[in-house]
Each structure stands twice: as structure tokens, then as C-alpha cells.
């Protein structure tokens, strides 16, 4: 989870994301950062996340849980 947070923080260009922070409020949350996050999840965990699943996710914790559930 720590490495996950670091990577997401890097992509979203914030100092350090809080696990319960609403990522969609951030300035850099857009189609590009979404793609970068999906690419990272695919490379790191071998898992793919679909649009409808992303619709309900706002925080790193929620995203991490989703990824874990697909492993």
C-alpha cells in the first residue's frame, strides 16, 4: 500500500496522497493520469480496471482494495 500511494502521488504530482483522499478532486486527475494509473496497475499487478469500476472509486484505499480483489 505504501509503494502504491507513492506511485499514485507521483502520477498525480502531489507530495503524498492520504489513503482516504479524494483523488478526483485533484488538479491533475484527468484522462491522462487515469491512463497512467491503469498502466501502472497493469504492469505492477497484472490486473486491469474497467471504466465502470473506476466510476465508484475516489480514494487510494478504494482503488487498492479493488486491485487486491482481482489478484
Amino acid at each position, binding site marked *: 500500500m505504501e509503494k502504491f500511494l507513492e506511485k499514485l502521488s507521483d502520477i498525480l504530482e502531489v507530495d503524498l496522497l492520504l489513503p482516504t483522499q479524494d483523488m478526483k478532486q485533484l488538479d491533475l486527475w484527468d484522462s491522462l493520469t487515469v491512463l*497512467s494509473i491503469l498502466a501502472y496497475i497493469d*504492469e505492477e499487478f497484472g490486473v486491469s480496471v*474497467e471504466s465502470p469500476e473506476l466510476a465508484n472509486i475516489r480514494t487510494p484505499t478504494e482503488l487498492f482494495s479493488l486491485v487486491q480483489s482481482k489478484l
Partner: protein
Amino acid sequence: MNFKFKNASITGVLSVVPSNTLDFFEEMDAFNFSAARSRKLAEVMGFSKHRVVSEGKTSVDLAVVGLKHLFDHGFLKKEDVSGIIFVTQSPDFFIPANSHILHGFFDFSEDVFCLDITQGCAGYIVGLIQAFMQIDSGAEKIVLVNADTLSSKVSKQDRNSWPLIGDAAAITIVERDRQEVETKAIVKFRGSGRHALQIPAGAFREPPSEFSKILKDDGTGNLRSRENLIMDGTAIFNFVQENIPPLIDQLVEYSGISKVDFDYFVFHQPNKFMLEKLAQKMEVPQEKVIKNVVESFGNSSGVTIPLAITHNLSEALNSTSLRLCLAGFGVGLTWGAMDIQISPLDFCKIIED
């Protein structure tokens, strides 16, 4: 569906791009993008410049410029042409089809076959297959046109799509010859995924109306109407990552070769990011995967493959032979790949309108 063809080759490729060039950084100012965001988009996605037709110009206009060039410079003789295939999703009219317009404009003989194909990102592969099939049946020389002017269907207030849209045309000559190296292709379809890339209104299912022109916010600050192109970036990214690597594996097995036998991978050019990720996933060297079309021209749907060839391989293809892996993926959903040997071409260049 799988295909194999012998005794036919591509003998020339010409791309036509609008001279009208738009600059991403100038446009981003208008979008109120922060400098950080613009920089990031430019760096990662490869956004820089894109070419769009000036108002009133269509895919036919670009094709006419191309054909005139070929006739004027002695690269093509009207009486040698057996058929015209026009691949587009931005036709001049519902009726008549673009290939008929070209036929009439240049006064081709009555025996010249005309066919329009409604295809997008995989349109070069599908168009080539059609050309090869016609030659298999007896045709001598086919003029394959891939052309689109989808910029007029993209909302200028759609920050996901406007910066990367491009208009262009390409003319590829395919002719019967003694080419012994078989061309192989595999194309797959998934209609259930068709909503990932669509223009919801403007044709028969949802005719144009006052309602279909209303610009709506999609929830992330992008405004578009039902008559505008809408792309689900996430769905497309996942689709490409999951399906293209296995397609290429299937192609090399069908051909009895391996990925290292290809000189270059010339894929549809959605943006630099997706192509880098795809190369990584396929475990092929980044230098063999062409990914520089969006930054200079934008994404012109089915035209990006021939545009990539003329933009990168002109010098090589003037004098040497290359074995290329072409792949188109997108609208449909359609995904197709082709293993093709290209011998020194009669012409391989880009011109402006």
C-alpha cells in the same frame, strides 16, 4: 478471420496532410489548463501539433489532391487502374459514396470497380485485405484511399479528444506482381464493445435535432453534444493492452516466424503513451515501434498507419525491402494485424494540401 495472399504487393504510398497546423500549447491556453498539466500531456501523450482541414474541406478533397499529384508526376496512369477502394468514416454524403465521387471527378472507365468501406482505426488493414482479394480475383492495380476529416465531429471543448484529432488522407497502390513472400493477416471483431468509440447522433438511429446539438458536460469538464465523437479512454486502453499482444503472437505463429523477424511495428497511432505501453507489454524493442505521428499530425483514424510509413520509412523503402508488422485497432471494436513484405516502393512521401 485469417487471410493469406500471394502475388500482390504495395508499390507506392502517398500521404496528404492539411497545411493547416494547430499548436497544442496555444490551444491549452484557451482551455485554462495549468502549465503543469499541459507539459505533462505534451510529454507523455506526445501532443504537440495536429493538422486539421480548413472549413469546408473533406476527405474527398484530400484524396483529389493526392490522386492529382500521382497523375501529374507520372506515378499512376488512369488506364491502369482496376478498382478504387475508399475507406472513410467521414464521407462527403450519405449518398453517393466517396469512391463514386472520385470515379466521376477523374472520369475513370466504366470497368473500374468502386467500393467504400466504413472503417476507422483498423481501416488500413481492412482496406489492404480488400485490395488483395480483388487482385486475387483478377484485378491488376487497386487504388486504396484511406481518408478522414473527423475534426469537425470533435467538440473543441473536449480536452480529451480535441488536442489529438487529425485529418489526413493516404493513397496506397496495390498491384499484382510476382511477390513470393505471402502476406498474412488476422482481423477480429467485438461488436459488444462498440460503445467505446462512437458518434451517437446525426445518422439514422438518432437523426440530427435541436437536442442532439446541445453541449453537455461529461462530468470532468469536457463539453460535447450527441453529434460529437466520444471516446472511452479507459476502455480503449484496456482493450488494446489485452488484445493486441495476443493478436501479434497469433500472427507470427500463423506466419511461421517470430517477432524478431519484423523490421518495424507500424501500428495505429492513438498517442505515444499507449504505444510505449504496448511495446513494453509485447516485449519488443521501443525503437522498432513507430510512435511519432500524433506529435506532428494528430490521430487521423485509419490514415495513421500509412502516414507512419511515409513519415518514417520513406528513405528505407526507396531502396530496400522491409518486413513490417502492421496493426490497426479501435472503432468497432476491430483489431487486425498484417505481416507484409514491402519491396522498394515507386513512391513513399507526404504532401500538403
